[in-house]
C-alpha cells in the first residue's frame, strides 16, 4: 500500500532555553513553510557550543529543511562578529561577502594625498552597492558584511530596513534577497577593521555551513527513499526487493555517507585554521557540491512520479541540494583552490595533515 502523506515522522529535537519560534521567518514570506507539516524545531546551539556541535545542528537543520537561517547564524555570522569584536545581536542573522562594494569614510581626514574619504577620522563608512542574494535577508535582525574599505578589509553590520530590498529566492524558495545600499552611512560602532585572514575565514565558514546543510539534505534523501522503496509495492513485492533498485539505493547511501564524513572531518581543522582549514573545507564543499547531483538523481528515480510533486516532501531536500551546491562557492570554485597548493610531494602530506 502506498499512502500519499507528507508527514515524515522525523523526531523533533526539543528546543533548549532558546526560543526557536522567535527564530523562524514570517510564514507568509516563505512559500515552502506551508508545504511542510510543521516547521520542526532545531534548537539554535548555545554560544558555547563546539564546532562539531554547530556542524551537527546545521546538518540537522538541512535534514529537516528548517525554514530559518540556522546554519548562517550559528556557523557564520555569530563567530565572525565575535572574532571582529562586535556584539552579537539576538535572532536570525545573515552575511554577505562583498569586496565589490564602494566604500568611503564618512568623516574624511584632512589628507594631503589621496581622494576624499580614503582616510577617516573615525570608522564611520559610506557604503554604496548591492549585496546579492543574501540568505534570509528579509528575516534577519542583522546582516554581517565583509568588504574592502580604502584602508583594507572591514566587517560591518546593517539591518535589512536600512537597505532597499528586492526579494528573491533559490530553487527551494528559501529567501535570497538583494540589498541595495545607496551611500548608506554605517556608524563607527558597527564597523571593525579586520585582518585579511578573517575574510578568508568567512568564505570557509560559509562554505562549511553550506556543506553541513547539504549533508543533512542528503540524509533526508536517504531516509525518504528507503521509506518509499520499503513501502511501495509493484509486481507484488516492495521496490527494495528488486536488484536494480538495491544497486541504486546503495550508491545513494554511499554518496550521503561520503558527504557526511567529509563535513565531520572539517570540524577540527576549522578550529585550527590555516592550510589545514583551507584543505578540509575546500574538500568538504567540493565533495558536497559534486555529490548533490547523484544524490538527487537517485532519490528522484527511486521515488517515481510522486517525488516530482509537492505531495511528497522529497522536493524539500532535492531543491535545496541543487541550490546549496551552487551557493558559497560551487565545486568549480573550490576544486581548483583545493588543488592549487598541491604538488607530487605535498599531496599525501596534505591528505594526512589532520588528524
Amino acid at each position, binding site marked *: 500500500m502506498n499512502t500519499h502523506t507528507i508527514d515524515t515522522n522525523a523526531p523533533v529535537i526539543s528546543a533548549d532555553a532558546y526560543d526557536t519560534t522567535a527564530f523562524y521567518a514570517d510564514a507568509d514570506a516563505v512559500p515552502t513553510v506551508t508545504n511542510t507539516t510543521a516547521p520542526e524545531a532545531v534548537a539554535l546551539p548555545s554560544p558555547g557550543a563546539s564546532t*562539531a556541535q554547530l556542524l551537527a545542528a546545521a546538518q540537522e537543520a538541512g535534514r529537516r529543511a528548517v525554514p530559518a537561517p540556522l546554519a548562517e547564524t550559528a556557523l557564520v555570522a555569530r563567530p565572525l562578529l565575535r572574532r571582529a569584536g562586535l556584539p552579537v545581536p539576538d535572532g536570525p542573522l545573515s552575511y554577505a561577502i562583498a569586496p565589490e562594494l564602494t566604500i568611503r569614510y564618512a568623516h574624511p581626514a584632512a589628507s594631503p594625498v589621496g581622494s576624499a574619504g580614503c582616510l577617516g577620522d573615525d570608522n564611520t563608512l559610506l557604503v554604496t552597492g548591492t549585496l546579492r542574494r543574501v540568505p534570509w535577508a528579509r528575516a534577519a535582525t542583522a546582516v554581517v558584511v565583509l568588504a574592502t574599505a580604502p584602508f583594507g578589509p572591514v566587517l560591518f553590520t546593517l539591518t535589512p530596513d536600512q537597505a532597499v530590498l528586492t526579494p528573491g529566492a533559490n530553487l527551494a524558495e528559501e529567501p535570497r534577497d538583494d540589498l541595495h545600499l545607496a551611500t548608506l552611512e554605517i556608524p563607527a560602532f558597527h564597523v571593525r577593521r579586520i585582518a585579511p585572514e578573517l575574510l578568508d575565514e568567512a568564505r570557509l565558514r560559509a562554505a562549511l555551513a553550506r556543506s553541513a546543510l547539504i549533508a543533512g539534505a542528503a*540524509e533526508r534523501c*536517504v531516509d525518504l527513499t*528507503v521509506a518509499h522503496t*520499503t513501502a511501495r509495492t509493484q509486481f507484488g513485492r516492495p521496490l*527494495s526487493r528488486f*536488484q536494480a533498485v*538495491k*544497486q541504486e*539505493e*546503495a*550508491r545513494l*547511501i*554511499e554518496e*550521503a*555517507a*561520503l*558527504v*557526511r*564524513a*567529509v563535513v*565531520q*572531518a572539517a*570540524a*577540527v581543522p576549522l578550529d585550527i585554521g590555516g592550510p589545514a582549514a583551507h*584543505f*578540509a573545507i*575546500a*574538500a*568538504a564543499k*567540493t*565533495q558536497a557540491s*559534486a555529490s548533490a547531483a547523484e544524490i538527487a538523481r537517485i532519490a528522484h528515480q527511486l521515488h517515481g512520479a510522486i517525488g516530482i510533486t509537492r505531495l511528497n516532501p522529497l522536493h524539500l531536500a532535492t531543491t535545496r541540494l541543487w541550490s546549496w551546491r551552487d551557493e558559497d562557492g560551487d*565545486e*568549480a570554485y*573550490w*576544486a*581548483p*583552490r*583545493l*588543488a*592549487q597548493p*598541491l*604538488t*607530487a610531494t605535498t*599531496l*599525501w602530506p*596534505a*591528505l*594526512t595533515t589532520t*588528524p
Partner: protein
Amino acid sequence: MSPSTLSPIAFPDVALPESARRLRTEVRAFLDEERARGTVLGRPDSWLAGWDPGFSRRLAERGWVGMALPTEYGGAGRGFLERCVVIEELLAAGAPVSAHWVSDRQAGPSILQHGTEEQRRFFLPRIAAGQCFFSIGMSEKNSGSDLASVATRAERTADGWWLTGTKMWTGGAHVNDYAIVLARTDDAEDKHAGLSQFVVDLRAPGVRVEPIRLMSGEHRFNAVHLDGVDVPDGMLLGERGGGWKQVTGELAFERSGPERYLSAFPLLVSLLRELERRSATAEQLTQVGILTARLHSIRRLSLGVAAALDAGASPDTHAALVKDLGTRLEVALVDTVRSILPTPADQYATPGSHPELLAFALLHSPGYTLRGGTNEILRGIITRGLEQH
C-alpha cells in the same frame, strides 16, 4: 557501536592519537631509506604486484608486520588505526608489500581469533617476523561471488584430512608458504553449513601450483590444484563446520582498508609531477581538486571503520560501503588522470614514467572492483544492512 545501532551512513569520526602522528613520521623516514635503496618505486597496486620478501622482513624488524597482534605472539600489540597509518603510508608510496600482505591483513587476525594455542604459537611470531607468507584459498572455477558453493572437499582420515579440489585466482601461491583453504567437510542442506578452513602447506606433496597470467602478462595468480593433500589434524583452523562464519568475519578486515582506495594513488602523484613541468590549466586543477576531495572523503570513512574495529565492532555494512566507494574511485582515477593529461598508455615506456604507470594502472583497473567481493554483491550487503537497521 554494534551494526544494529550504527546507521549505515553514520561513521564514527576519528581523531588519530599523538602516537599515530609519531608513527607516521617513523614510517616516512623508513620509506626514505628504502627509496634510497631502490626498493620503493611509487608503483600502483603494490599490494598485489610488489613482491619483495626482503622489504617485508625489514618492515617486520620495525614491528610493522602483524602489528595488531598481541606482543605475547610476537606482534606489536597496536590497534587497527595504527596499522592503518602504516599501511596507508606504504601504499601511498607504492611500496612492495604483497609478500606479507595476506598474512598481515587476514591470516594473522584469523589465526589469532580462531586458531588453537599451538597454531598461534607456531604461526603468529613467524608472520610478525615477515618470515611466513600466506595466500587466500577461497575462490574456485564455479565459486566466485557464490562462495558457499565451493567444491573442494576435505575427507576425514585417521589422523587428519585429505583435500581434493582446485582453488583459483590464488595470488602469490607460487611464492608463498601457506594458503588458508575453504573446503567442504560435511554435506548439509544449508550450503553455508559444513564448510571448514584449513592451513595448507603450499609445498606439501599433492599441491600443484599452475600459473594463470594476468592480461598484462604478469604472473600473480595461480590455480592451486589439491590432488589429494594430507593435512594434519592440527591444521584445521577454527571449528569444523564453522568455515562460513569465519570467512565472512574476515571480510570487515579485508574490505575497508586503505588498499581499497589507494591502489591507483601513485598514478595521481605521477600526474602532479607531470603537471609541475608545465603550468596546470584551471580545468586540470578543477579535476585534480575533485579527485582529491573524493580521496580525502573516502579516507575518512575508511578510518571510521578502523576505529569501529578497534572498538570491537564488526562493521560489515560499513566495510562494504567503503570498498564500493573506494574501488570505484580507483577506477575513475585512472580514467580521469588520462583525461586530465591525455597520454597514450605504454607498457614498454621507461619503467616509472607516466605512460608506463598509466598502462600498468589501467591494465590492473578492472580488478579493483572485483577482488574482495564484487561491488554488485557489496551493494546488496549495504541495502541489507539498512533493512536490519
